[in-house]
């Protein structure tokens, strides 16, 4: 459970987030909105890369914004990036193990935990393969494995299916659906693929130019007139 209250971010004259208050309660929550709505900026606030002008974020009873950015992973924050960021020079195994070795988990269980995360997301490549040699879909899965290893509490996925073919998107949807039950984490999914959002998220919130314009059960939100208008003319709506 994550409560966001009065969150405002200012970049010079623009307000990519303007007094946003929203609660993420269901196990997998969607966060949608047209390009430039402020979705990635919101994730960057949670990661600590962007300092908000005002506002608070309480996640599982703790003040997330008070934590140093690099400590948030140890607390249980995980994320993927809009442009995928698996570490090319390292093997699949080391990519995932890296999260584990900077967490508070003991190293004696590391090997098992890492291999378990790799098989959970269904990576076909060998754990010893260098990530730089993998295709786009597999790299995305490496990022997903990095999100589920250890004890994640909050998993932020920024357009994980962007550019993937349908079968790989379907596989990803299945993985995302299983994360909350498997790890106990709260998942927030940002995507322009409404099929993926409907297939995975019980509730969805909608941002438009930094304002929260709707929040509720996904099916209802996608029917909402304001949401349809916000997206009108943008071709991403499936």
């Amino acid at each position: 459970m994550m409560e966001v209250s009065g969150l405002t971010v200012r970049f010079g004259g623009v307000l990519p987030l303007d007094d946003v208050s929203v609660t993420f309660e269901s196990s997998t929550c969607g966060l949608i909105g047209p390009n430039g709505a402020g979705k990635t900026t919101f994730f960057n606030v949670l990661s600590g890369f962007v300092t908000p002008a005002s506002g608070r974020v309480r996640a599982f009873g703790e003040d997330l914004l008070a934590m140093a950015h690099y400590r948030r992973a140890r607390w249980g924050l995980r994320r993927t990036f809009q442009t995928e960021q698996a570490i090319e020079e390292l093997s699949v195994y080391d990519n995932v193990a890296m999260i584990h070795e900077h967490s508070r988990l003991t190293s004696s269980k590391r090997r098992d935990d890492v291999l378990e995360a790799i098989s959970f997301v269904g990576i076909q490549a060998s754990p010893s393969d260098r990530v730089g040699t993998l295709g786009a879909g597999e790299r995305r899965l490496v990022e997903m494995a990095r999100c589920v290893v250890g004890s994640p509490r909050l998993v932020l996925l920024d357009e994980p299916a962007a550019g993937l073919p349908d079968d790989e998107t379907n596989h990803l949807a299945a993985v995302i659906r299983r994360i909350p039950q498997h790890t106990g984490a709260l998942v927030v999914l940002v995507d322009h693929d409404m099929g993926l959002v409907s297939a995975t998220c019980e509730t969805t919130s909608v941002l438009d130019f930094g304002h929260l314009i709707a929040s509720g059960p996904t099916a209802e939100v996608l029917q909402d007139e304001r949401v349809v208008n916000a997206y009108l003319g943008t071709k991403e709506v499936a």
Partner: protein
Amino acid sequence: MRLKGHGMLPRIVVIAALYLFALFGLPALLSLYYIDSLTQAAIFSIVAVGLGVLVGRVGLYSLGQYAVLAIGAWVAARLLFATTLPYPVVLLAAGVVTMVIGMIFGLPALRVRGLYLALITLMMAGALTVVITTTNFPNGGSGFWGYNGSTVHPAAIRRPAIAAGDPAYYRYSLVVAAIMFILVFVHVRTKPGRAWVAIRQSESAALAAGINTTLYKLWAWALASFVTGVAGGVLAGSSHYLYSIDFPVQDSITLLAVVLMGGAYSLWGAVVAGLLLQLLPALFQVWGVSNDWITILFGIGVLNVLITAPRGLADQVPRDLGRLVRKLRAVGQRAPAPEATAR
């Protein structure tokens, strides 16, 4: 913890054989002239492996490594004159003091990256060179600076008793180099090494992985300063007399170019860099080729790396040789069948 490991043994055997040959074979085969330049190559391969950590692993471009080397040489020379401490202790002290000084300078510098870091380190190196030019290197004088400007016959910096002669000192340098390489190898293969490549690729991805990027950058900086300081200590003994003009600021730029050429990401690249920097000029002198050609050659080498071989010569040469061998073999097999060549 690592899953690979097979294929490791033959590699270790090859490296050990090469190393033993360099240690015992080369001094028997080569003249003192070449042994001296190989000593220098060993010393500068340590400097290169330190810079390789910064540039290749973390993506931090330093143009101040000659100044760092000078600090190590100064500290070692000072201790060698002032004390009778055993050589390994002096080298360790040179490394530690250089590391501390490097970190004091590095702490503010590491807030920036890329071109700005390169410029800042260049400026700092310039400032340090000015200091060393005024204080001079210790030459057996008294006082804190240990410099006596009025002596005509300055005292020579001592060498370890077991390595007084040049071939012995060459071996000594090679052993120190091996220890420094192992130190770096252990780092890049474990937690800090993984954190460093993550930082190099993307600082935000590293932070999101829970890596304290400031700490790990400083760690890399400390390691590079330490090994360079130790190299400075070895350099002090190798040359007997140290002068500030031996550490020109612009040579740090050449060093970066050579490290990129050799391959900043691999430890072999550092060996190649040491040889390019020290053995090549010695060869050119024997061949009667002007030293200016070296600068031109290094320029072409860096271009080559930027355009065709981002991982440097240490990666490119074996790869291209492998290709050549495969091609030759294919040609050899095809030769008896005329229709195959007539295609």
